[in-house]
């Protein structure tokens, strides 16, 4: 065992001890508790990176198999224009447009279905079933129908995000209790007033649940759809071609961008959720 590996392992052990200490600390104030809550996973993540770097360099793992984090970082810095172009093509066009269309149409379909109990009973089991299917498989068909550019990827994203949204919204619209609906009736509220003032707010936690699920589904759908044919730009295209050329560090750079974009997307949706459903116990409780 050489020094780099030993150093990495020692760092790991030290970080572990530090974390054990930190979680045992009896933090009194809220900021202190929050700081510990952030610090512990941060240390863990840093440890992962250090151990990764140390093991790869120390054990002489070929960079084709697994490049060290420092190499990936320098690759990210060196190829920012390419990464930005790919990000634009895949995320800003395919993912966002598909996400908006899919979630929007799922939402509208749910409101339409909600008025007919018969349709609701017919569509819900089907929607649940379709949610479990490998929808990603329609990617080749969409590429055939909508061409190689981003519309076909957006179409895949639309189909993938539609059903979770439909199922969750219908479930959420049923969440308002009978007594609340009765109260609205005593106010002589119209259907639409009841919908906007009572049932949609009550459905918000469910809708945001679908929005969060869909935020990750959308990115995956768009990237995988690019494996079936793209113009020469896009995250999925870059990943599959750079793998072929054995530029694994570029692949990892692309993965880092995708992970960052996915986390940010999810985080933004979660923040909006906190702002909109401030009344919900899971948000109020902290």
């Amino acid at each position, binding site marked *: 065992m050489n020094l780099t590996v030993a150093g990495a392992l020692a760092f790991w052990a030290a970080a*572990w001890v530090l*974390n*054990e200490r*930190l*979680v*045992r600390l009896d933090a009194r104030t809220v900021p202190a508790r929050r700081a*510990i*809550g952030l610090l*512990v*996973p941060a*240390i*863990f*993540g840093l440890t*992962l990176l250090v151990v990764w770097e140390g093991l790869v360099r120390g054990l002489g793992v070929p960079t*084709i*198999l*697994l490049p060290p984090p420092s190499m990936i970082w320098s690759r990210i810095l060196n190829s920012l224009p390419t990464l930005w172009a790919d990000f634009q093509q895949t995320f800003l066009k395919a993912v966002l447009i598909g996400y908006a269309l899919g979630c929007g149409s799922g939402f509208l379909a749910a409101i339409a279905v909600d008025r007919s109990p*018969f*349709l609701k*009973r*017919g*569509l*819900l*089991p*089907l929607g649940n*079933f379709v949610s*479990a*299917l*490998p929808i*990603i*498989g*329609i*990617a*080749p*068909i969409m*590429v*055939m*129908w909508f061409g190689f550019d981003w519309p076909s990827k957006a179409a895949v994203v639309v189909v993938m995000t539609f059903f979770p949204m439909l199922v969750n919204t219908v479930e959420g619209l049923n969440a308002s209790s009978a007594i609340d609906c009765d109260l609205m009736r005593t106010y002589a509220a119209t259907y639409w007033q009841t919908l906007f003032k009572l049932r949609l707010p009550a459905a918000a936690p469910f809708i945001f649940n679908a929005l969060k699920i869909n935020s*990750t589904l959308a*990115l*995956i759908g768009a*990237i*995988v759809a690019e*494996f*079936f*044919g793209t113009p020469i730009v896009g*995250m*999925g295209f870059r*990943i*599959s071609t750079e*793998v*072929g050329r054995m530029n*694994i560090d570029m*692949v990892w750079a692309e*993965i880092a961008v*995708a*992970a960052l974009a*996915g*986390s940010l997307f*999810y985080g933004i949706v979660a923040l909006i959720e906190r702002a909109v459903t401030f009344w919900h116990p899971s948000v109020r409780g902290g």
Partner: protein
Amino acid sequence: MTASARIAAPAEAGAAAGTSALRKLAEGNTLPVLIVVAAIVAIWYGFTVYLNAPWQLDTYRRAGAEWTAVDLVRDTMAQERPVLPAPHQVVAELWKTTVDVRPTSNRSLLKHAWITLSSTLLGFAIGTTLGVLLAVGIVHNRAMDKSVMPWVIASQTIPILAVAPMIIVVLNAVGVSGLLPKALISTYLSFFPVVVGMVKGFRSPEIIQLDLMRTYNASGAQTFWKLRWPSALPYLFTSMKVAVAISLVGAIVGELPTGAVAGLGARLLAGSYYGQTVQIWAALFMAAALAAVLVALVGVAQRLVTRRMGARP
């Protein structure tokens, strides 16, 4: 009059029984689902004609042939490489590739489905085990809870399906090939729902129950096996349903970059290269059937286990 009324009475009773059976159907989910499915199939046929018509009209014009509406409808549903194959074409293809061909042949969809299924199951098994073990660690160790849990969640922001080709190619370069690389992708996807579900499940016993175990002087292992594990089982099955579905997706995507050798994913890719739409749809339906069967099997296992544990339906 009276005689005919007497004769009519049983018929009326029969009709009443008929309507009550109908009502039961309508109140349950079966009839609505069937009607919605029928509507979808009808819409599908409509789109088949609409989407395939341009190409068909083009061929008519080139051949200079006379055509009627009936001809058009019939021909749009019998194209070799339609934009959208008609449902019966897909069913015929499914029948041809599952029943008419020997299961060992490369053209048999059953063989490809089996390849996908085996890596799905392997990945699902590893993923579930790993997920349960991680959850046990997270529940019993505070440092692990604080440090690992955020990263388990962060791990899912890496779109692993997008990385699948790299994992496959890289593992192939090291000499790991065949089932395992695909199974690893399924593992990565399926461990997450299991961890999240099981952490929740292991924590579902109430404090009063844990206190009771303490008054019995139960050891950690006893508390785990007699209280935490049984109360986590419902969560296990719920997350296993999600995990098995997502494992299948992982296995299919994992088959895309292997040079289209075998498996449902390879069938999809080959179909898209050669424009064989009917083949793509058949593979899709096979995948859907697999997903349905797998989720249903987990459901059956759940029912058996909960019944053995004394749950009343």
